[in-house]
């Protein structure tokens, strides 16, 4: 009985052991790029500051953040900033319909199986992971509320200046 309890505790805690946090290298995961159909590879963005944004169509704050993220990306792209959005809708067609009506310029990927949010151990929707030029996660931002725009922009500019 004691062994079973110990095993249960270990299994419960083990799910938190792999959460992607600040200071860790951005993990690789499986998502499909919307434009080419290729697999997402974070190594392709080394040397750039990358914001990995997890979103879904059923998440109102996610959708609210998209115009801001799009304008930030277009403003800072020339300085070496990129956004990789990972859509986690179980039905990617819903996301495609939404994007047709509300297009964005940054990189879009689809992960209907939840591989990437599982690897990152996403704690909330939306979640943003700001990755520096060396591929290290420097900021984990949960949710999107009024006033978060300034915080995110400040961190992006700080990493771009490094």
């Amino acid at each position, binding site marked *: 009985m004691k062994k079973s309890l110990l095993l249960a505790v270990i299994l419960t805690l083990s799910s938190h052991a792999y959460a992607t946090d600040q200071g860790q290298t951005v993990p690789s995961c499986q998502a499909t790029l919307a434009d080419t159909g290729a697999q997402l590879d974070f190594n392709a963005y080394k040397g750039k500051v990358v914001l990995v944004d997890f979103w*879904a169509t*059923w998440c109102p704050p996610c959708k609210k953040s998209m115009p801001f993220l799009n304008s930030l990306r277009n403003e800072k792209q020339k300085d070496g900033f990129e956004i990789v959005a990972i859509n*986690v809708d179980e039905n990617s067609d819903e996301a495609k319909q939404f994007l047709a009506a509300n297009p964005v310029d940054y990189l879009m990927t689809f992960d209907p199986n*939840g591989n990437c949010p599982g690897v990152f151990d*996403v*704690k909330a*929707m939306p979640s943003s992971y700001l990755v520096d030029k060396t591929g290290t996660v420097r900021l984990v931002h949960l949710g999107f509320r009024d006033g978060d725009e300034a915080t995110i922009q400040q961190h992006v500019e700080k990493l771009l200046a490094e």
Partner: protein
Amino acid sequence: MACCLCLLAQGCSKVSPWERGNLAREDMSINPNPNLNRFRDHIFTSKEASQGGHSGAGGGCGCN
């Protein structure tokens, strides 16, 4: 005992933040038709006077 616990535990499942698409659907809310329910409560409170038991106010005149 362990079998019973296992059977009961089948109803318990961790839903990760990114898996809440179905739970976020409008028809999955506890109160899927808030406007209709408020309208019905208003009629009920008006007809039954103090027997509403919901959050409706008024003394039965139906004017609030």
